[in-house]
């Protein structure tokens, strides 16, 4: 039903004189009808490429060179694109897969493309929405949904076409714990639906859905082996850059007691967006110099909104925010960048330079910092980016793009670091790099403010602030707040 034999794939060179990028080297497996296979691998190991080749999209729409054999539902996908609806593909970034005005239209679109008679479409849409728990949001805009809901919708839209083979590329990728739980529940239902399923992931929970797993490492693949064995072999998963379990993390303890001087002081801050949505209602908190503060709370609690006040991206409608004792009201964001290093969510949307080197050097140049070249070279090396220095950031994987934004931040060497969900979507190797850098910054006495859904990370903080509905609902040690 789904077969790969000696499958190899290489992307064309990204510039003149540069070599091809080998993405897959000799991948072999055979799945019969209704079987499920997990493909585990770190970021950039070739997981998405494998899905694109098996769906008939690569090299047809991506460019590149392919050899070997790949068949899906009896179709030679290297020879011709399989007919619509035979192979379903969930792309890694579900948001870009959604382009219809409402949830139900999104599901109906593929059925219309298949030429399904209109009276049948309604029933099939209903069934797909019910299966993935989306009935209550059928008239909402797909872009107004949370990450987990968007993934479920993309799944529902693909599943409604009743594909014989379903390829899921990182179904848990980029999701917070709540989103992961929602999507895992949806995958459970697929697992028992009889469809032939291949899913790529670096999350053990997703791999556990498949009896067999194939491990990809820099394009080279093992044969499918029992998943239970793979998941028990922690050393192998760590070496492949897939996992970085908390017991291996570096110490995030401060080397000195934080000074009793506030780095950031927030006093009775209120904020509402222009559409009238009030995001903060009288938030007050104090973050001491050298302290590590984790900000936790459900989606929509106002965490990112609060963070954006720390470097002047948002201005309070009422109340004050002081950084190192000075009111931010009179300072621009560009000016505050000397004091506050800021890491946004969704790195892929913030990269603007022509090369990785230019991207990392942007801040150092804008702030006219000394030893610019040395700072940039050190940051590139620290985040494993030296080999990509002349590559356009836009063509790199999510994890590497995240590393670029971290390297850009590291060059500025600011006394305060404000990080919005820094660990989301990172594989083991990337998470190790992030945590080692954070440990080093902590040792250097830097103030750390991190918004996170990962309770293991929040547990390492000196102080945890919990937000809900735009208000501080708990403020204390990790034991007091996280329980």
């Amino acid at each position, binding site marked *: 039903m789904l077969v790969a034999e000696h499958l190899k794939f290489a992307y064309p060179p990204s510039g003149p004189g540069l070599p091809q990028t080998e993405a897959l080297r000799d991948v072999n497996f055979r799945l019969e009808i209704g079987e499920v296979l997990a493909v585990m691998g770190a970021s950039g190991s070739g997981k998405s490429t494998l899905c694109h080749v098996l769906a008939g999209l690569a090299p047809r*729409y991506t460019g590149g060179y392919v050899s070997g054999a790949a068949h899906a539902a009896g179709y030679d996908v290297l020879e011709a694109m399989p007919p*619509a609806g035979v192979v379903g*593909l969930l792309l890694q970034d579900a948001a870009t897969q959604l382009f219809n*005005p*409402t949830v139900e239209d999104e599901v109906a679109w593929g059925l219309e493309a298949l030429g399904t008679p*209109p009276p049948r479409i309604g029933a099939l849409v209903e069934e797909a929405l019910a299966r993935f728990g989306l009935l209550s949001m059928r008239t909402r805009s797909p872009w107004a949904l949370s990450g987990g809901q968007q993934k479920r919708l993309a799944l529902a839209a693909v599943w409604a076409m009743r594909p014989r083979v379903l390829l899921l590329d990182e179904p848990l990728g980029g999701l917070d714990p709540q989103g992961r739980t929602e999507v895992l529940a949806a995958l459970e239902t697929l697992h028992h639906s009889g469809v032939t399923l291949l899913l790529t992931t670096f999350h053990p929970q997703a791999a556990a859905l498949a009896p067999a797993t194939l491990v990809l490492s820099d394009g080279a693949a093992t044969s499918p082996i029992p998943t239970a064995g793979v998941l028990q072999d922690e050393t192998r998963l760590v070496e492949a850059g897939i996992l970085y379990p908390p017991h291996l993390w570096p110490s995030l303890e401060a080397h000195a007691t934080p000074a009793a001087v506030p780095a950031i002081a927030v006093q009775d801050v209120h904020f509402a967006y222009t559409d009238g949505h009030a995001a903060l209602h009288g938030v007050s908190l104090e973050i001491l110099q050298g302290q590590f503060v984790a900000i936790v709370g459900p989606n929509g609690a106002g965490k990112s909104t609060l963070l954006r006040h720390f470097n002047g991206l948002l201005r309070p409608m009422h109340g004050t925010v002081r950084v190192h004792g000075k009111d931010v009201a009179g300072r*621009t964001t560009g000016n505050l960048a000397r004091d506050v290093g800021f890491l946004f969510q969704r790195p892929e*949307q913030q*990269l603007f330079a022509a090369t990785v080197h230019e991207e990392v050097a942007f801040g150092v140049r804008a702030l006219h910092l000394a030893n610019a070249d040395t700072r940039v070279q050190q940051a590139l090396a620290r985040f494993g980016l030296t080999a990509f220095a002349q590559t356009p950031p836009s063509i790199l994987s999510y994890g590497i793009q995240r590393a670029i934004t971290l390297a850009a931040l590291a060059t*500025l060497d600011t006394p305060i670091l404000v990080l919005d969900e820094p660990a989301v979507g990172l594989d083991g190797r990337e998470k190790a790099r992030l945590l080692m850098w954070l440990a080093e910054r902590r040792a250097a006495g830097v103030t750390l403010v991190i918004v996170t859904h990962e309770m293991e990370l929040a547990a390492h903080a000196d102080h945890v602030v919990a937000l809900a509905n735009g208000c501080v609902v708990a403020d204390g040690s990790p034991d007091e707040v996280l329980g």
Partner: protein
Amino acid sequence: MSVALEFYVHRESWLHRLDPRVKLWGMVLGFITAFLLPYVAAQGALLLGLHLLLLANRIPWNALRRLWRQMALLIVLILVLQPFFAPSGTEIVTVGPLRLTVDGLTGAVLLATRAMVIAFIVGALLFTTDQRALVQAFVRLGLPYTWGLTFSLTLRFLPAIQQLFVTVREAQAARGWVAEGNLFRRFREYLPVLVAVIIGTLRMSDRLTLALAARGLATPTCATAPRTVWHDLHMRRSDWITFIGITLAFLAISFWRSVFSG
């Protein structure tokens, strides 16, 4: 995600239910009418009528205000620049080679109200027609499906492109970029942002190509069945009545215009 460029307002109303082909026809006639009437009072009346029409069809004030805000820069430019391009008639004030006249000022006000009338005619279509119905209207008027889809996707991704611009600007500011210097210098500093937005938009379109191909846009189906439509458009009696009504109104205005203004 910013929704500043997302137009459709989901409501139940007569205008929402009206067949989008009739709305498109009304839009074309509305454009011609706006150009046929060179009177500020007539344009003002049209603008007021459009506001009342939209409010009566449950489009909230916020949406109308947003459209005014989006048009504000254009309106200000017209009001400031246009008088000096038509410097005939009674003079009000002269500064160097520039003459501000009563005719020039009236012409600018006429052009500005006409621009707002056109914006609100387009608004009346986009506020009350979801993109799916709009695409289907184009298809039923003879356009290939992919053209209609392209139009719909352009509308759909405008907010994403706008958001991309904001995100890149914020990312640069957070890394120390400060807008300073004269207008020319600021414009030059914005160029990398524009380049980044263009690259980002191309990437978005690349991913969209994959998404569309993965869901069978470019491939034949097993049964080679033609594309079907879940909710197709049907002209109802009320649609025909509206179609005839706006056509007659347009003919009446054209007749009046040709008889009374020579």
